[in-house]
């Protein structure tokens, strides 16, 4: 079993399965905060998936996308929490 086979048949399915589990919490989540946390974790898992995918394909350009995703995850979480807190302050 080569390294590519191991990554393609074992590591990538495990990451995809964990994305499915997180997506279940994203759809179901009782409060909006759960959905935001699930979205954050989805993007973070996506960064790991991109890292493994770039090894499988042998192209290091995909890592740039992972950097942008990390930026977007932080910005979206900060913006969501800011507006949730603001909405609750008004009441």
């Amino acid at each position, binding site marked *: 079993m080569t*390294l590519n086979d*191991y*990554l393609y048949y*074992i*590591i990538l399915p*495990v*990451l995809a*399965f*964990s*994305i499915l*589990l*997180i997506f*279940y*919490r994203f759809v*179901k989540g*009782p*409060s*909006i*905060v*759960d959905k*935001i*946390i*699930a979205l*954050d*974790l989805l993007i*973070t*898992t996506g*960064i*790991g998936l991109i*890292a*493994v995918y*770039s*090894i499988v394909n042998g192209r*290091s350009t995909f*890592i*740039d996308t*992972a*950097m942008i995703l*990390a*930026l977007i*995850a*932080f910005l979206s*979480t*900060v913006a*969501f*929490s*800011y507006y*949730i*807190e603001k909405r*609750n*302050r008004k009441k």
Partner: protein
Amino acid sequence: MSSIIIVILTTLGALFVLLAAIGMIRMPDTYLRISVTTKAATLGVGLLLISAAIYFNDLSTTSRALVIILFVLLTAPVSAHLIGRASYFMGVKLWDKSVMDDLRGKYQKKDHVLKSKTDNTPGDNIDHSHLNSDDEDDLVK
């Protein structure tokens, strides 16, 4: 030699990401879910990125991977703190088996400022006592 290191690192990283996903499903409480997101997933993604850096063995890729790891390590606690604070003001309920709420009476609804003195005015405080009965099916028993 480097492929063995890559196999070990990616296995550990995928395992930690999977544990974070399982914790996202199994944890009974929003605050516990926040703690899952910040620790396990950060470690798992860091290991996966390090394995990518070892595979390419290249200065530009390594520096990019290290920058992403540094960024994730810096921003995960900050975003977890912000979202935890927002959910506390939103009145997200604690788990009904939680032993104590350390912030009880210290965060008031009006000014959103942390005080060290406990103030138990019932109108100003936010109720986190336990989950409602209609949320009970979300509890993992």
